[in-house]
């Protein structure tokens, strides 16, 4: 076999969301990768401009199915900055607790997916079973398992009762016990180590050049974490370590994530301890004064960035979302160079990709004429009918 181009995606078992990697292979070795985004664009930014700020919280929460709290908090914080609102202390702690619970559920989910990608389904089943503990506690705290809907402009919508706080602490203890076991598995299991060590290398220089963020960047020695560098919510009132690793490979990214879980437990414990009684929300007018702001938030996958511009009405003029995966897409192409096809799923999974968050509209040009054309719904329908008729499928 000479050089072959195989399509990983848009539909492929390794990818949980549609995205296209055209991989050029020489035998089993990857020599070139071509990435194409744009299969999952939903026009959320545009939709936000046509809705009020309150409605936008819920639509932005649905940018991502896993880090939903990240997007809504980031947006709410940005709007609060424009409006000049300081939210109550207790609301800050509640946001922090939910944010860390979300990080736990996201990292446990990632560990399972990583196990599945390298054919270690047992790890997948175990982590997802333990993830149920944190999902149940999230459901009790917010009412929902994924899109929590706890944020509102000026605070949070639900208080956490004293009994619930105790329950959070007991489940955190249980999760910590399990996480210690997973750290042991990740650092001692031979076949797992074989598949993770020295796979998907991204040197510190390359990581800086390509702009890797979050656990991906931290595993290549980039010491940056928005929670510490630009604290929001209650992160300035708790102490925690920023996990940085110098393995530069998939193994390092795994270590960063499992160790971050331990930090998340400590942050939750401190938040529960430091929490004081008080109001959970302040009143914010429906119309946000004109202005613009730029919000940063450390989502489980890396730094999430929102930009909001207000024109003094109850609808924003512009909302811009930069989900963490978009920043980590370029490093992936660098990581894949010269590795085996067998390493591709785990290398792509190691950035914890969320393609639907990251998707952008794509302009497709005809190769010969170098022009793109716009088709409306009717002509698109006609085109598809013609396409199928040519292949002998009639309507």
């Amino acid at each position: 076999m000479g050089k072959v181009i195989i399509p990983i995606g848009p539909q492929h078992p390794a990818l949980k969301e549609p995205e296209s990697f055209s991989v050029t292979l020489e035998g089993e070795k990857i020599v070139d990768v071509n990435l194409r985004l744009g299969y999952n664009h939903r026009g959320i930014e545009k939709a936000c401009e046509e809705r009020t700020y309150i409605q936008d919280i819920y639509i932005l929460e649905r940018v991502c199915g896993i880090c939903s709290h990240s997007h809504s908090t980031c947006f709410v914080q940005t709007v609060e900055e424009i409006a000049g609102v300081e939210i109550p202390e207790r609301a800050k702690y509640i946001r922090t607790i939910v944010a860390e619970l979300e990080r736990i559920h996201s990292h446990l989910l990632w560990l399972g997916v990583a196990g599945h990608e390298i054919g270690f389904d047992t790890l997948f089943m175990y982590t997802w079973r333990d993830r149920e503990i944190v999902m149940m506690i999230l459901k009790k705290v917010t009412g929902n398992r994924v899109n929590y809907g706890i944020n509102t402009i000026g605070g949070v919508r639900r208080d956490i009762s004293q009994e619930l706080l105790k329950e959070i602490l007991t489940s955190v203890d249980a999760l910590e016990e399990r996480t210690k076991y997973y750290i042991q598995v990740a650092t001692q299991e031979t076949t797992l180590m074989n598949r993770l060590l020295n796979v998907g290398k991204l040197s510190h220089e390359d990581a800086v050049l390509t702009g890797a963020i979050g656990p991906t960047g931290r595993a290549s020695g980039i010491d940056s974490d928005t929670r510490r560098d630009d604290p929001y919510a209650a992160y300035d009132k708790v102490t925690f370590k920023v996990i940085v690793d110098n393995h530069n490979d998939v193994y390092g990214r795994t270590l960063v994530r499992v160790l971050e879980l331990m930090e998340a437990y400590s942050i939750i414990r401190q938040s529960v301890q430091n929490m004081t009684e008080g109001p959970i929300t302040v009143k914010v007018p429906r119309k946000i004064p004109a202005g613009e702001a730029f919000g940063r938030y450390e989502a489980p996958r890396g730094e999430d960035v929102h930009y909001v511009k207000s024109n003094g009405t109850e609808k924003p003029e512009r909302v811009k979302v930069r989900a963490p995966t978009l920043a980590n897409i370029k490093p992936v192409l660098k990581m894949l160079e010269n590795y085996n096809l067998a390493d591709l799923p785990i290398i792509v999974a190691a950035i914890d990709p969320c393609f639907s968050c990251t998707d952008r509209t794509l302009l497709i040009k005809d190769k010969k004429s170098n022009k793109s054309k716009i088709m409306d719904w009717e002509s698109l329908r006609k085109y598809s009918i013609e396409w199928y008729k040519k292949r002998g499928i009639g309507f």
Partner: protein
Amino acid sequence: MATALFYILIFPGFLFLAVFGLAVEFVDRKLYARLQNRVGPPWFQPLADFIKLLAKETIIPDKAEKLIFKLLPFFALTSVVATILYIPIWGTEAIFSFNGDIIIVLYLLSIPTLTFFLAGWYSKSLFSMIGAIRALTQFFAYEVPLFIVVLSPALLAGTWSLSKMAEFYNQHPGYWLFNLIGFGVAVIVLLGKLEKVPFDIPEAETEIVAGSFTEYSGMLLAFFRLAIDIETVVCAALLAAVFLPFGLGLSPILGFSLFIIKVLFIVALISLLRTVFARLRIDQMVNFCWKYIAPISFLQLLINIILGAVLVK
């Protein structure tokens, strides 16, 4: 003629093997699920899957070689069914036996892997072709250790017939304990032959979809899967006959139950092993087989040569 047909089609041939194969698939899946803390499928699930696949549309790719594409599942099936006739099930007698049948058995058992390769190759799809090449690469890595460890007990017995071997170990109880290293190697190698984790590289789901079987569907896929189930039973039966030859003088019913227990024990070992490992890469697999498995199998051979000289004379 009638008895020969009975042997081939009913017992211990196709029908018995199909039923037992589906049962073994259930045991494997259920055990795998329970070890992973899942509920697992009900007992009839493998049969239901088989019937469902039979009822589905069979799609053959335009570019595939149609005749070979259709014939390959049946090649795989017939070769594994034919193998059982030479393996002693209970007692020491196989249905057919002659000096050298152990080679025939190993040869027949390598045909399914070759059909997997051809199935992938003639599908003319990229994922199948990569799967096919991987299947063949893996085949060369595990087949040599498998041959060596299966032939070592025969060397000790001084015969190349499975039935004679069973007779020898029946007369010398306890001698099978000398072959335990070989049994360990054979179980590991079996994971490669049956394409189970950590050696499920040819059909690695997250990399190449389903490897050789990517383009197969409907009835053809159903028969391929049945062939793999039967291959599991036959391989386990071969291992039971070669490495666990005890309790052979029992009455037919007890002996048959013991045979079932032996096969299930080997299948349970396989389920356990595939629970605790991650999938290796093809280069790691080949390295592992030649660096560790092949030398250990040679060690077993050496032990048996020395023992053969000392004990048997």
